[in-house]
């Protein structure tokens, strides 16, 4: 394989405990040959960013089902930039109303995956958009 291994941090920011989706995505990325670290629940943006830098990942995937995405997703992007890790691809998922998506994209979330997204679509998106 000539391609560099893609390293992904799957993270659960905030207090939300629903991690079925996060773990299923993490498993699918791993099965697609990526190296995946899952943070576990209740991560602050600071914790996520420090894990991303420490693990030297190319991608951060976040999942929120509690409605706190508008506050927490952009905070992670901003902190990544502050740490000089602004080239990390940041994607999100969860219960996120369509009308919130433009603001999230403006804030630097590259893509938002809603309920019903096939796993293969997420894998493909990351493979095509990651900056190695």
């Amino acid at each position, binding site marked *: 394989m000539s391609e560099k291994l893609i390293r992904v941090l799957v993270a659960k920011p905030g207090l939300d*405990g629903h991690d079925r989706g996060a773990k299923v995505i993490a498993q699918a990325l791993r099965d697609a040959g990526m190296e995946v670290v899952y943070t576990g629940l209740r991560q602050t943006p600071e914790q996520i960013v420090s894990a991303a830098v420490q693990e030297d990942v190319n991608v951060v995937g976040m999942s929120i089902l509690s409605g706190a995405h508008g506050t*927490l997703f952009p905070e992670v992007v901003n902190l990544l930039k502050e740490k000089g890790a602004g080239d990390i691809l940041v994607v999100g998922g969860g219960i996120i109303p369509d009308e919130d998506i433009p603001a999230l994209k403006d804030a630097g979330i590259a893509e938002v995956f809603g309920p019903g997204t096939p796993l293969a679509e997420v894998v493909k998106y990351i493979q095509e958009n990651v900056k190695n």
Partner: protein
Amino acid sequence: MFSKDQLDKIAAKRENWTAKLEATKKKRPERQPQFSTDSGVDVKAVYTPLDLVDMDYERDLGLPGEYPYTRGVQPNLYRGRLWTMRQYAGFGSAEETNQRFRYLLEQGQTGLSCAFDLPTQIGYDSDHPLAKGEVGKVGVAIDSLADMETLFDQIPLGKVSTSMTINAPAGVLLAMYIACAEKQGFTKSQINGTIQNDVIKEYICRGTYILPPEPSMRLISDIFEFCSKEIPQWNTISISGYHIREAGSTAAQEIAFTLADGIAYVDAAIKAGLDVDAFGPRLSFFFNAHLNFLEEVAKFRAARRVWAKVMRERFGAKNPRSWTLRFHTQTAGVSLTAQQPMVNIMRTAFEALSAVLGGTQSLHTNSYDEALALPCDESVMIALRTQQVIGYEIGVCDMVDPFGGSYYVEALTNALEEKAWEYIGNIDALGGAVKAIEYMQKEIHNSAYKYQLAIDNKKKTVIGVNSFIMEDEEKPKGLLKVDLSVGDRQVAKLAKVKAKRDPAKVESLLQAIREAAQSDANLIPVFIDAVREYVTLGEICDVLRDVFGEYKQQIVF
């Protein structure tokens, strides 16, 4: 149930019939090579008495209201009274949730079910840094008794029963509920309701834990003891399979993991010196109603039978009320799709029907827009109307357990029971549910992944997602939006409440909680003393965190 002679005749007939079936299959090939339920029980084309040769009617089924309660916990079930129609609600501030509660009661709902926001569920006040962005989002924010008073304004707590989805800080919220009811002029003996209070499943799959298992189990036993003496009709725990299923388990795992958690609570309470029949009758359960209709009906029946055996045979309970598994049901949130959301009304209706045919005591039906947002008034009303159609229009409530005696449903009930015992055996071997948290997490994750792969490769059809897709689908309008200012308003209200208190008094009440926590004293009475004086949830939980430490999640992936 059948004589040897009859069974022989049926066996001979079935042999001929099987030859016919094979011939038919050549002309009309079957849709898939194999049929099975979500729990992996193989499904045959037809079921006969031959599938129930070992069944003993008296031993395995009995009559409704009789051991082992396979057919239900009441002799006349819905002929007496329909299940409690109880829609889970709560968002934003206490004022907004109070309005939703009153709307639901006006629409004919018969009990309340309160959702709290995540900071409340994890014991943080709204002004805590970790509460940022979460206040009022998935439920109502409750910081102090002042919020509880607003929440139940003009709702007489002595007359309505309330279920509260609160776990780690359940004792504190129960204390607030009692204090609020007393301020309204009711006594403890007049109030009725349920606290979820099931912390083990928080460790397993729901995530709103605070303390490590040992002190958590002690708090739960404190609640059992306090309620058995002071509010004997309160449901002290709602041992929940709902979230286990939502997290991805199969139906058989849902039964097993839920009842294994139940076994752990009973063990802990007995170890704390309580008599099993003092608290056994007040244990209640909470299950999911998922899409595989007949498997769900069988699941409820099997769960009742397993729990009856657990309480009578394993724990030696003598009071028949301790043997009965009474449960609330909610339809499967995970089965709702963001695509073609109106189709969710049908999914929810079938799921709800399975719960009714399975003999549920209360029911929440999901709203069609919940894969998109919190439900709006209109979608909540349709969800409630769905229950009313089942209860009042389609005739399924006029007899008890109509699927009793169905060859398939009985065989499936047996198969699920057998699988459940196997899992319970595995959990026992690991030292019980608390020790088996990571085992259950792994099992649930594996099932969830399998389920998703089955959708992705179209082995499982999901309308609107992998089949019958509509291009250019119009998105529903009028979705509920939680007012973004709720966090700021809540923080301001909290500051006002705190400013009115006597700091020395607050300090001494918190000190009393600290001392009780450090001794064997029951914590609930000191919680009540504190909340009456508007000591906040966060302040109380901070003391508990300080005394007992916090739970650290083991990451299983």
